[in-house]
């Protein structure tokens, strides 16, 4: 009680600087260098994908029979060349556009839909919960890769359908995480107290339930981003997602896989790109989660 807190010295009557919950979260994030670093890295990756045409040193489609599988640094090819002699850096920059799109958009949409469904299921309980969760269980019965392949196979290939397929695959697990977290929060007295004010349900959900559910959902969603990139590449590999010669990290990984003994360093490049992206996502959401946990 004797600890001085900022604003405590302000005269009575006048309101000292007040941060709401999200203000506090932002304040805490600003003093978390690790999270800030990975946020910057992620921003860099996204920006470099957006500005790929300006940044790429070579044409990503330009093949060369004599420059196949050259090591990094070979005649201006900073990251080497692939099995068809194309510049790996240029392809990574261009490939980032589709890869990031397929990695993030399905997770984002699935978080909104699955998280929303889980919130409703967890809060409503009873029959509503049973209906929603049993439908999700049906999706759970299939391995996620198989399900993605089946859905995009049924709808036809292409980036758009691939994203829809991935979204559908990610909804059930996100729904389950949200439902579990909501069920735990729902039975706490502060939710009853909020309901006891007679406030509309949406306000109770928004102010008292959501903030306590968002943490686990965000963490899980961010870990799904890397899964999404890999799954997208799997779809591309089967000819259901991105079509060659379109650059895509997953496709590149698949193609270069065969050259792992000839040019291991070049082979690793798309993997490193995927790794950096998913690590940034994970660290960012972990930082967000700990900033949101005001108790620590």
């Amino acid at each position, binding site marked *: 009680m004797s600890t001085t807190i900022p604003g405590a010295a302000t005269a009575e009557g006048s309101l000292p600087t007040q941060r*709401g919950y999200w203000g506090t979260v932002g304040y805490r994030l600003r003093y978390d260098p690790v999270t800030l670093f990975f946020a910057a890295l992620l921003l860099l990756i996204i920006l470099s994908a957006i500005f790929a045409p300006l940044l790429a040193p070579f044409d990503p489609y330009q093949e060369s029979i004599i420059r196949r599988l050259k090591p990094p640094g070979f005649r201006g090819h900073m990251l080497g060349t692939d099995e068809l002699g194309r510049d790996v850096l240029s392809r990574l920059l261009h490939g980032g556009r589709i890869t990031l799109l397929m990695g993030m958009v399905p997770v984002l949409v699935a978080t909104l839909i699955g998280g929303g469904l889980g919130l409703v299921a967890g809060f409503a309980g009873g029959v509503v919960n049973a209906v929603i969760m049993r439908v999700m269980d049906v999706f759970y019965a299939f391995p996620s890769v198989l399900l993605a392949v089946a859905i995009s196979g049924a709808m036809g290939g292409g980036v758009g359908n691939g994203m829809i397929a991935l979204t559908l695959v990610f909804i059930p697990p996100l729904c389950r995480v949200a439902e579990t977290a909501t069920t735990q929060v729902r039975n706490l007295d502060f939710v009853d107290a909020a*309901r006891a*004010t*007679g406030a509309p349900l949406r306000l109770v959900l928004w102010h008292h339930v959501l903030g306590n559910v968002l943490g686990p959902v965000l963490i899980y969603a961010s870990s799904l981003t890397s899964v999404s990139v890999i799954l997208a590449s799997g779809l591309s590999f089967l000819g259901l997602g991105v079509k060659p010669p379109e650059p895509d990290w997953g496709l590149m990984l698949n193609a270069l896989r065969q050259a792992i003994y000839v040019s291991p360093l070049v082979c690793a490049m798309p993997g490193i790109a995927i790794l950096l992206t998913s690590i940034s996502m994970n660290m960012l959401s972990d930082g967000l989660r700990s900033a949101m946990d005001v108790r620590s």
Partner: protein
Amino acid sequence: MMSATLMELDQRDRGGPQQPLLVVRNLRKHFPIRSGILGRVSAHVRAVDNVSFTVRKGETLGIVGESGCGKSTVARLLMRLINPDAGEQIFDGDAVGEHGGISVADLRRQVQMVFQDSASSLNPRMPVQNSIAFGPIAFGTPRVEAVGQARELLTRVGLNPALFGGRYPHELSGGQKQRINIARALAMQPRMIILDEAVSALDKSVEAQVLNLLQALKRSFNLTYVFISHDLGVVRWISDRVMVMYLGEIVEIGPADTIYTGARHPYTRALLASRPALDPDQRREEAPVSGDPPNPINPPSGCRFHTRCPHAEPVCASRAPSLGAEGEQAHRAACHMQDPASGHSQAIAA
């Protein structure tokens, strides 16, 4: 703000001081127990059975009983946090949730609740002044104004708003959290507050402070309390009338002093005798009532207390005693010994 509150309270007082603030008739809640994969209802927990009572304006009604006797269920039913299976609830002359009466939302605006577990009853991710201001904001008070009022209420419950307003619940002690809970209930400018074991989890010294605070607030905000507790001493101190519950039923109800000096129901007497004696010479060696309460899934026939009652006779197992109609007497007990016509050998003379 405070004087305005009082004026507003007078306007909301529709029936005058004679009309009970709350009338509860035949309130019933049986929780189904589902078993098997199909979730068939195999039994019911009879948490609250045919409970009728009134709460007068400005009084404090204490509700006591062992754990599991249905005290908290009554509280949640009164707030409509759970829906009753049957029964009427009339708030200041208006039936709740019925045509021509008031809605549940209207009821909740006038009745607030303070919960037992001060830790889980505050949102861990919300500064406490925002928790207090949540209700008023939800009903359209501008945010800045509502937070200002919340800070004023913090002062009223004895906490410095500059020091405590922006804190999170984990930064407060149990007593401070309970003060916040009280402030949150007050923020809705209620006419009645249900205190469900509100001080039970606090240290004795803190408990006394909070009880004094509650008494002071009751006077200045013109409140009516329903005070639920298992602590008989506290209930006697704060209550005007006391209602004793056993296995979902009312066994005795009456003015606090009468109950404590002349309890009529054997269960009430046992409860009172189970208080630890302060005088070592009066220390008793045996518990006045033995065993646990019977299972509320299949409560005993007749009088539900007959399995533990020292005065039990065959009539107790066969026929349920009646509490008597409201208004007959101030002090009523549901016991065959109180009914000259019951056939109980120890029944009072007519």
